[in-house]
């Protein structure tokens, strides 16, 4: 019998290796797998590469993970925020490597990883500073039908940590509103995907027409409480 339901966050994260590339979903207050990030801090893996749209806010969640010093490199589109002081400090003191990627290229590089694409030509970033490799050399470009493109490579994850809304024991997932963001594409791009949900339902209870991430892309599902914090996604009536 297939049963992807994990009893706890710590059980789901067991065995995560040092040096792993960790894809972490979420955009703003929506879809951040806070419980899994906290679990990762407890789990203790080091020398991580983290892929997220941002680089942490305030002192909790991803910022707290960065603060442990266990993240070697972050791949993101928008690290600078009003409250990104943890990342800012590490970056300025040279303690973290940054690969800055236009947001759509980030999403497409993840999609390419999940879809078995070797590399792709994108018009985004052509002629800009971000069409350069980390060593400053230009990325490969090509003019196709008169339009210039930059060659971009996939981003594969060892593990993806995402937040969904409902799931079943096969790992099928639905999401809630704009909390969907990077979840479905990161789920496809990692060797192992761990999803939190607020509700676990019987097989067949999710409308097959409405399943967003089919269980083939999901390794483990953990149920978590819906918490009334901004970072948890849903702010309950006080």
């Amino acid at each position, binding site marked *: 019998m297939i049963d992807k339901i994990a009893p706890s966050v710590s059980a789901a994260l067991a065995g995560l290796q040092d040096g792993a590339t960790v894809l972490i979903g979420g*955009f*703003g*207050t*929506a*879809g951040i797998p806070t419980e899994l990030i906290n679990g990762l801090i407890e789990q203790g893996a080091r020398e991580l590469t983290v892929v997220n*749209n941002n680089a942490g806010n305030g002192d909790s969640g991803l910022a707290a993970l960065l603060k442990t010093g266990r993240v070697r490199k972050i791949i993101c*589109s*928008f*690290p*600078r*925020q009003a409250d*990104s002081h943890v*990342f*800012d400090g590490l*970056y*300025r003191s040279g303690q973290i490597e*940054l690969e*800055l*990627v*236009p*947001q*759509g*290229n980030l*999403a*497409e590089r*993840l*999609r390419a990883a999940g879809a078995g694409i070797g590399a792709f030509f*994108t*018009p*985004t*970033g*052509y*002629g*800009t*500073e*971000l069409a350069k490799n980390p060593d400053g050399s230009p990325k490969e470009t090509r003019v196709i039908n008169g339009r210039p493109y930059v060659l971009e490579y996939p981003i594969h994850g060892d593990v993806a940590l995402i937040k969904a809304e409902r799931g079943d024991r096969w790992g099928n997932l639905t*999401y*809630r*509103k*704009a*909390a*969907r*963001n*990077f*979840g*479905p*594409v990161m789920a496809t791009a990692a060797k192992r995907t761990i999803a939190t949900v607020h509700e676990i339902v019987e097989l067949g209870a999710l409308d097959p027409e409405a399943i*967003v991430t089919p269980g083939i892309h999901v390794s483990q599902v953990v149920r978590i409480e819906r918490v009334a914090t*901004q970072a*948890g*996604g*849903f*702010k309950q*009536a006080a």
Partner: protein
Amino acid sequence: MSYTRRSKDELARRVAQDIHDGAYVNLGIGQPTLVANHIPEGREVILHSENGILGMGPAPAAGSEDYDLINAGKQPVTLLPGGAYFHHADSFAMMRGGHLDICVLGAFQVSATGDLANWSTGEAGSIPAVGGAMDLAIGAKQTWVMMDLLTKQGQSKVVQTCSYPLTGIGCVKRIYSDLATLECTPDGLRLIDAVDGLGHAELERLLGLPVQAPAC
């Protein structure tokens, strides 16, 4: 002759006037979001938000915020009847694939031929952040910039060649500003309109660039 700058709301109204019925539009963070308040009566315009929303509605009433439903600026929004959610790769495919009609962005500088600089001032020691700026700039059928024509120091933000790091090349079609509306073409700037009392020669003097007369 004297002239008066368009206020932020007047400028937003001027942009909104040119958005056609049925348009799919992405409004950038900051000033462009004001445009949503000025869509003329009777025009149905569908707003896209890069984080995965089509049919985005206005901010919710105080107390009804849902932090799973936010815009690109991470502010709570609402969804209109008929609206839809989708994931990030689909959202940016919508942009990059040329499916959006209009994208309205802010800018630090725009060149006469439509190069855009709006993501970084290139200042040493600053922390870079790009977000969806580069995808938006090159993706929509038309990219419009909304900004003040001059810096606070009185320098033109419309330039021959951008000195700030580029967001995209030749991607801006129109500049809506507090003093004039301009079209960027491969041959340079062309006037669409200017505020009352601002003559052609004075506009060219402010810009330090030649401006072709409006197309007939």
